[in-house]
């Protein structure tokens, strides 16, 4: 084999590498699987302990909700939707970065996606699991949920209302989860075979062997596999847009001031990608440090993600500006009051201003290269964006509901300990699943990185005559 290119970059104009150092298939294989073979360190156990305690809180708060009923939540009339739906929308949104990275960036042939897609796809799955808990619990009696949600010939003799966005949501979210899971697993199969074949102990070899399904890298299989993978990506691409669009319909098709607006679908989708990338960055900055992934998740990857956050953050900001403009321009007094009085100066105005700060001001630091490459700054900014996006959903849902048309209907809202525990609990569930994922499955798509290395090396040799410095 010819000597590998010392620095492998995808772009002749940009010398910064996507894969750092001299790598071969063997070194990539060993370095990316190393964190699976290495025993769990003290740091992992410490984090896992914290995550498990938060998961315990989830078990307690779910049990209490089921025992007492959803009266134990802070919801009231008119604030009939509160933490349950805020958290649902927040978690679903976080999942969108995974699908965007794995599907849209694959179709656009963005090579930098390869090092982070596995990571982000896993995040999608776990975020959707957390999200699904909330509407199920919000039904009050989750064991009856199938009656109300699924179109099957039940004893009620009545069918779901297909003109309701809530029914669309059931289909959208369950499709989203299923397709994300299949896509994730399909990408994982060759890596599981690599795990099977590099394992030292027969037990691990056996267990990974089961999940690898007897994969033998056959050329006949690859020929169909490539198509299967790219078509799943193609099918996931409209899902990125449709899932959050349908979630936004839950609000936009009603007449409530603050909800009844046509800008919701694109603005929800941009917000979802914005928060999803923030969550990926929040996890990947520490993970690349501790899992030894710095040679495949390079400064360039972080910078690209910062640029996506800046772009989607600007779209979200535009959405806010447009909402306010239309509220003024339409001349509707209720809309005007909602945006200019209630949100900015009402009892929940602190959350509004926190949202403006986190979502509109914070991403502006990504305009400068220094802002995009200073990892502690990027990490803190990403966390603030997560907070900001949660505040946005709070504003849309609670702030709009608590001051609607009739002053006699106005009511304040405060979450109870159950609401807060459920939210913290789902963060625990997400973290637990994610830490288990980091322990047992390669966090980076090993096969795809090898393929990228092969491709870049060949491209480097092919174009060698023209742009070799």
């Amino acid at each position, binding site marked *: 084999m010819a000597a590998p290119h010392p620095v492998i970059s995808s772009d002749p104009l940009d010398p910064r590498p996507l894969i750092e150092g001299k790598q071969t298939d063997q070194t990539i294989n060993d370095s990316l699987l190393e964190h699976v073979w290495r025993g769990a360190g003290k740091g992992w156990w410490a984090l896992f302990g914290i995550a498990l305690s938060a998961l315990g809180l989830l078990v307690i708060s779910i049990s209490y909700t089921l025992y007492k009923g959803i009266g134990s939540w802070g919801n009231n009339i008119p604030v009939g939707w509160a933490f349950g739906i805020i958290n649902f929308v927040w978690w679903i949104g976080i999942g969108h970065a995974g699908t965007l990275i794995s599907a849209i960036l694959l179709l656009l042939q963005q090579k930098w996606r390869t090092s982070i897609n596995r990571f982000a796809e896993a995040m999608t799955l776990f975020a959707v699991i957390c999200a699904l808990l909330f509407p199920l619990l919000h039904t009050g009696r989750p064991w009856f949920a199938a009656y109300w949600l699924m179109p099957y010939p039940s004893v009620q*003799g009545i069918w779901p209302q297909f003109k309701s966005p809530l029914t669309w949501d059931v*289909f959208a979210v369950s*499709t989203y989860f299923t397709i994300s899971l299949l896509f994730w697993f399909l990408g994982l199969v060759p890596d599981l075979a690599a795990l099977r074949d590099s394992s030292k102990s027969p037990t691990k070899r056996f267990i990974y062997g089961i999940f690898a399904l*007897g994969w033998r*890298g056959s050329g006949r299989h*690859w*020929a169909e596999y490539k198509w299967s993978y790219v078509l799943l990506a193609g099918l996931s691409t409209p899902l990125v847009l449709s899932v959050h669009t349908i979630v936004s319909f839950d609000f936009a098709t009603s007449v409530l001031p603050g909800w009844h607006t046509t800008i919701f679908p694109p603005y929800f989708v941009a917000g979802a990608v914005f928060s999803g990338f923030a969550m990926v960055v929040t996890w990947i900055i520490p993970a690349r440090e501790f899992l030894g992934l710095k040679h495949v998740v390079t400064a360039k990857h972080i910078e690209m993600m910062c640029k996506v956050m800046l772009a989607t953050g600007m779209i979200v900001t535009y959405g806010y500006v447009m909402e306010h403009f239309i509220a003024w321009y339409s001349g509707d007094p209720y809309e005007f009051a909602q945006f200019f009085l209630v949100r900015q100066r009402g009892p929940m105005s602190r959350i509004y201003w926190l949202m403006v700060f986190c979502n509109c001001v914070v991403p502006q630091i990504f305009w400068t290269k220094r802002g995009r490459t200073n990892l502690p700054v990027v990490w803190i900014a990403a966390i603030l964006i997560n907070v900001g996006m949660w505040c946005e959903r709070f504003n849309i849902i609670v702030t709009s509901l608590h001051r609607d048309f009739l002053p006699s209907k106005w009511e304040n809202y405060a979450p109870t300990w159950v609401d807060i525990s459920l939210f913290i609990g789902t963060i625990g569930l997400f973290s637990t699943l994610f830490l288990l994922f980091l322990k047992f499955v390669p966090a980076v798509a090993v096969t795809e990185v090898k393929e990228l290395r*092969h*491709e870049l090396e060949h491209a480097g040799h092919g174009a060698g005559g023209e742009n070799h410095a």
Partner: protein
Amino acid sequence: MSGGGEHGSGFVPRRFVIGQFATADALLAGTRKVREAGNKGVDTHTPYPLHGLEDALGLGRPKIPTLVLLGAIAGACIAYAMIYYMNVIDFPINVANRPPHSPPTNLPITFELAVLLGGTTSFFGFFALAGLPKPYHPIFEAEFFTRASIDGFFLSVEVPAGGSVEKVEADVKGAGAVEIQTVAESER
């Protein structure tokens, strides 16, 4: 016992000649050569898909795209028919005097089910076409084959029943394989 099968059970072990190649390009060239030498049942085994593999193996058009298209169309039809049957034929409900059959509100679910069935067809269709899961394959008998998922480029040729192993081995060697192993299916 190993390599046996002459116990009158009627078990004829499948035999494979497996050759390892030094580079991806050598494998592609070698695959062509081995096929041109008249061998059937040629396959490659690589850690990642190689450009030009389909050509070298002489594979036809992939079947997955057609299957996925059919799956997606089936999903859309099933969804629309389901909504139509439930809301128009079986149990129409008059909500605010909206028509029972309202195409715009049917679109989201029609779309979602098209994606769902297209996607599941892509996934399960691939595994069905590939004949996976298949935990045992004779090729796993070769010790060096564990490199196939890590960094090795392999070629395998199934020796036809009653055919000569030596001829196939010579072909694979002639095509540029650096190492060769011949394996036989074990009887279980």
